């Protein structure tokens, strides 16, 4: 009974879903650009990374706001809290990654690449929980 109510209450809002997916795509783009720069030394990839990260941070910030709204909507249930915290961690590390990417030329490496990997992994986990966490919670 309560499981059914829970399910209804925490269906991810479409706006939140699109923001989350957008942030993931941008962070993933940054990671791919980083890999390209790491392999080629071609500087333009690092410029792409910088802007993709900036975009990911903007979209990610709105996704995080949605997650906060979600918290109140679901009265602080466990999974929405985990989801919000994951988004926050993604954003903070993404911001540090952006600062690292503000360094000149190869000074970005390898810290920037490692951070980009972590950010993408965190964003993936957040997305996973956002779409399946509720069901997982319901099953228990």
């Amino acid at each position, binding site marked *: 009974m309560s499981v059914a109510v829970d399910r209804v209450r925490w269906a991810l809002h479409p706006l939140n879903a699109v923001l989350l997916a957008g942030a993931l795509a941008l962070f993933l783009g940054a990671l791919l650009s980083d890999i390209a720069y790491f392999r080629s030394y071609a500087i333009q990839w690092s410029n792409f990374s910088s802007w993709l990260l900036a975009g990911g941070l903007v979209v990610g910030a709105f996704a995080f706001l949605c997650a906060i709204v979600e918290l109140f909507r679901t009265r602080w249930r466990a999974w929405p809290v985990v989801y919000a915290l994951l988004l926050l961690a993604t954003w903070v590390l993404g911001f540090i990654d952006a*600062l690292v*990417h503000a360094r*000149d*030329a190869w*000074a970005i490496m390898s810290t920037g690449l490692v951070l980009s990997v972590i950010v993408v992994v965190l964003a993936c986990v957040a997305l996973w929980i956002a779409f399946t966490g509720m069901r997982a919670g319901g099953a228990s």
Partner: protein
Amino acid sequence: MKRLHLLATITLAVLLGGCSGGNAPPEQYGANPQLPAQQRGLLPDMVIAKPAAWGDHLPTVPQGYTIKAIATDLRIPRQTLVLPNGDILVAEGRGGNAPSLKPKDVIAGYIKAKGTSPVKGGNRLTLLRDADGDGTYEMKTVFADGLNAPYGLALVGDTLYVADQDALVKFHYTVGQTHADGAPVKVTDLPSAINHHWTKALAASADGRYLYVGIGSNSNITERGMTAEVDRARIWQVDAQTGMHRAYATGVRNPTALAIQPGTGALWAVVNERDELGPDLVPDYLTTVRDGGFYGWPWSYWGQHVDPRVRPQDPEKVASAIVPDYSLGSHVAALGVAFSSPAVGAKFADGVFVGEHGSWNRSDPVGYKVVFVPFRDGHPAGDPIDFVTGFRGKDGLTRGRPVGVSVDPRGALIVADDLSNTIWRVTPNTPSAAVKPAAPATTTGAAPAASAGEAKM
């Protein structure tokens, strides 16, 4: 406006939080500067000059000297040239068209612009004249207009050379002239794509046959890619007759001013080194420029200190890098150099004056003054001596930023200030006995070599 200012201060404070060392800077003058380990926090240190009006203030000069503003309301004066009759030419302009490549460039550009003059660059040469020799330059007139960010100036005989940001051009000049006869004639194009460092320094060889043009790099440390650095970070030797050129020296990150040493005819340069390796790296330097010499940029600095930010690395180039002669200190931003003369006075007779625009990326700002580097036997000997100070107060209020320096035949030092848009003139109170015959407006007695040396910037 006030609120904007506050916002900028807060932004800076936030940006800067926890990345400044605060220790006393290491001894970084002379041939063997201490070079600390490289460091770079998450954010670069940035402390931007807070522009303020001079009001009743004046720059500070040593005892026995007087400073006076001889021209104000200019449009970004950079370099000056003292003509044979004592007239002063001032190159005014602001160049560069480097696009912002990263979010960082957008933010840094905004912050850095707060520490400079809002005036639009003049793109012209202004002539100042003190006809009666009383030290007041009563005539201020536009000598030539429609130039493209002119910077380096040199006079060879009756030819005036001007280094625009994209070309070396020349005018015919006769002593006493107050306006150019016509449009300038191009000697040669200069590398101008992007123009991250746009200033083109200029000096004429002692015999007038060659012109040396300083061409800065197109980035701090190759962050615009290696292809942007073709023909950059070097000093060209241009044949004055044909306009043909060759690279005279390479690996010189940003040679902002050149001068020919009187007597020896040697080419000297002040060079601005790379940023973002810490508050005490890398020292800007003063050096003789060796024909064919490689000075490290971008692969290494101060000889064989490898810069890890450059990929691919080049150990062979690093091994061949020349150690510069004299460190002026990190981030001082030397933009002017001029050899002194006995007319300046005994203590400052042998050496060079260096105009230091001042740092923007150091928590404890440095520069913002004109120093004198004493020479002995034709080489630097001893620490720099402050010659003109007081441009930046302890409160951070900055009233001026020195750029080009020149020494005039009467023993006065001419300093261009591109923040307050002023030309300053520092004069010895008692004219030196050594130069008694130097009548105010006629300096025909100077030897060709000396006049070419005078003509350096």
